[in-house]
């Protein structure tokens, strides 16, 4: 099971900040994971694919082509707004 985290507006769209999801064998990059999510929920998938969204895999910055595997923590970050 991968642990998916959605922050900010992505959490609202996903209907929750966290979900556990087992990754199909042929899903080995973030891009591919987004495609799987899009098949299920087009609005969320589109939001995750926006150029302003960044990714963190196991607490390290990753890009859309970055490798993922079952057991990873994969976070989707919209533009931040602190302070």
């Amino acid at each position, binding site marked *: 099971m991968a642990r998916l*985290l959605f922050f*900010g507006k992505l959490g609202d769209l996903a209907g929750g900040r966290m979900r556990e999801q087992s990754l199909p064998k042929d899903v080995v990059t973030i891009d591919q994971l987004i495609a799987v999510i899009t098949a299920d929920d087009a609005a969320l998938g589109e939001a995750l694919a926006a150029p302003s969204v960044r990714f963190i895999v196991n607490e390290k910055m990753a890009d859309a082509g970055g490798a993922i595997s079952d057991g990873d923590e994969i976070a989707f970050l919209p533009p*931040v707004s*602190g*302070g």
Partner: protein
Amino acid sequence: MIRISDTAFDPGAELTAFEQNAANAGAVVSFLGKVRGKAGQADVSGLYLEHYAGVTEAMIVECERDVSARWNVDDVLIIHRIGQLSPGEPIVFVCVSAAHRREAFEAADFLMDYLKTKAMFWKKEVRDNDEEWIEPRDEDYRDAARWREDE
């Protein structure tokens, strides 16, 4: 020192503790950010803030290290709220102590630009009739870019 908390804090009390601990500093600059009751014409009833627990803190600690490498500062304190906030409540408080004031001013200014445009917080503004996840304004990005050329 970095503290992210879902309970209210008292900036004055924090400044007292910080400055009394800054025994040989000549200069202490603080920045306090508060929830505004207005966004343009609309009344704001509150903010909701969230962060990426663990990762947000680790990145701020790294930013504090950058500050210490770049300016001759004695001490840094960052307090940032998460959770539900009401208008007038403190959101963020940054204190920097240094021997001289220029360094304290610049480091505090730099830290605020970091917190506004790079630190992993997400902020939803709850208004009378709607709500919106806020993104940095163009001027926030411009402010943050000031530090890049001489890095």
